[in-house]
């Protein structure tokens, strides 16, 4: 079921630079989608178009198969349902305490005081932030701020959550925690869109990948497909995902099974042809007790 769709989208900044050109995408419900591309390839602009903050010069955006309208009532509707988490949490957290910040969206949606209280408490609990609720944002670590920024969006109960470079500046533990959280949220049927320049992340995490370069979508498909075309990747100035690259090297040398593309190290090792089950063609002149040179 398509939630968001764009048709022939084009957007040019007031100074004349084209930021989005000819973009056709379709976001399906409950999926994990990654937009992969270099900085400046148009990902962030596309996101601002998707929640109606920017208005396209050409083409249209369909939300549940209806074109977005740009009057304030329709915009509220779309912004409630398509939440954006920006890259830098300091740009997004503006209230004096975590509790107030997470409550900002629900309050503006017109929830009653008790409803706001319930939603905020549930969200904070869910995001593992309850103990921080009375703290001001500047007392939090980078990873905690990131989660508060997400909580502020999640509290509005959007259908789609868009995250711009969600793992930037997080260390490995922080990144893992955040991915777990996103996956869990996705399990509840929410659609999640991220942008990243990290092909490994997109390859391991996403259900569907859009490869962007120079304001256009130049490739799309499952991660295996979209991220194995080396011409498209070259155009996007990116390289293959590490595991995929190793797997291809192994395939070329005949060392790997024609297995499905490996997503982690155990899977990668499993693609290797297991030596202890290998059949060897013994040359006719072999004598009993000889060593065989394969």
């Amino acid at each position, binding site marked *: 079921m398509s939630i968001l769709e764009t048709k022939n989208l084009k957007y040019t900044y007031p100074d004349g630079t084209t930021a989005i050109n000819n973009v056709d995408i379709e976001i399906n419900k409950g999926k994990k989608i990654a937009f992969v591309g270099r900085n400046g390839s148009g990902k962030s602009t596309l996101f*601002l178009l998707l*929640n109606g*903050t920017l208005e396209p010069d050409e083409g249209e955006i369909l939300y549940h198969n209806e074109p977005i309208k740009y009057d304030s009532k329709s915009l*509220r509707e779309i*912004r*409630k349902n398509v*939440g*954006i988490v*920006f890259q830098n949490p*300091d*740009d*997004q*957290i*503006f*209230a*004096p*305490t975590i*509790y*107030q910040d997470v*409550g*900002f*969206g629900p*309050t*503006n*949606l*017109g929830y009653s005081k008790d409803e*706001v209280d319930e939603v905020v408490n549930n969200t904070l609990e869910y995001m593992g932030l309850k103990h921080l609720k*009375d*703290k*001001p*944002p*500047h*007392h939090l670590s980078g990873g905690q701020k990131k989660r508060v920024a997400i909580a*502020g*969006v999640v509290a*509005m109960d959007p259908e789609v959550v868009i995250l711009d470079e969600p793992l930037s500046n997080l260390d490995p533990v922080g990144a893992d925690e955040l991915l777990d959280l996103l996956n869990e949220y996705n399990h509840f049927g929410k659609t999640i869109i991220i942008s990243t320049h990290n092909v490994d992340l997109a390859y391991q995490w996403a259900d569907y990948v859009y490869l962007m370069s120079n304001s256009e979508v130049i490739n799309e498909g499952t991660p295996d497909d979209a991220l194995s075309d080396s011409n498209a990747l070259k155009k996007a100035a990116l390289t293959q995902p590490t595991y995929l690259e190793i797997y291809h090297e192994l395939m070329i040398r005949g060392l790997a099974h024609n297995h499905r593309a490996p997503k982690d190290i155990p899977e990668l090792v499993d693609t290797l042809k297991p030596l202890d089950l290998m059949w060897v063609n013994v040359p006719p002149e072999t004598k009993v007790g000889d060593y065989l040179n394969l």
Partner: protein
Amino acid sequence: MTTLLDDYALISPLRYRNNWLKLIIVAFGLLVGVSSTSPVTPLFIALSMSIATVFLGKTPLKLYLKILTAPLGFAFAGAVVIFFFFGSGSEILSFNIFGYPFIANSEGVNMAALVVSRTFSGMCCLFFLAFTTPMVELFAVLKKTRLPESFIELSMLIYRYIFVFLDVAMSIKYAQTIRLGYKDVKSSIYSFSMLVSTLFLRSWEQGEKLYLAMDSRCYNGRMMMFDAKRPVELSEIITASLYFIFILTVFYFTKNISVV
């Protein structure tokens, strides 16, 4: 590095006491201090507020003393003027510097002592408030006082961005110091101008991002208020009342005491 008292208030055990009670105590201290006619009552207030801040509020003593010296510069500079120029009465001290006469008389000396003690007392009351009641608690109080909502909203947004920009300012200043930007007066002025300009640009950009962030969360002219329940206990009311009576008694019996 700039020390903001708010950071200490957030971890003070007194944060969780009733905000109104704290405000009433502070208001009482301020008003009695500023109305007193002898330096004795202000000194009593200063002492009691300091004790409360350091022992009940768990403010580090070293920090408290350091912060306390900051206003003294202003107080003494102002007091020196009063000392030599204000009022009449018997002459106590006089000398000439570069032909200008400096004459201190009893009224001036008394007023200078009074003003210094009032400032001292007022500052200690202010410190008690600042070290035990973080701004996030005061927003709830401001809301209850029915100040216009836009004023409170603006205060809350300013509060948040003060810390963001302080961070930026500190980082830029570090970067400048490391590249020897504050080695002498001339370079300090040059560096400082650039720091301010950069900071302004960053603030301006942040303002645009902030609008974007508020708007994409359906901003509709409403900010959420912090509304913590901080019940007041009977014992606290009794203690505060006893304190008020004590200070008023001191006030009454010492009102005619003067230094000279």
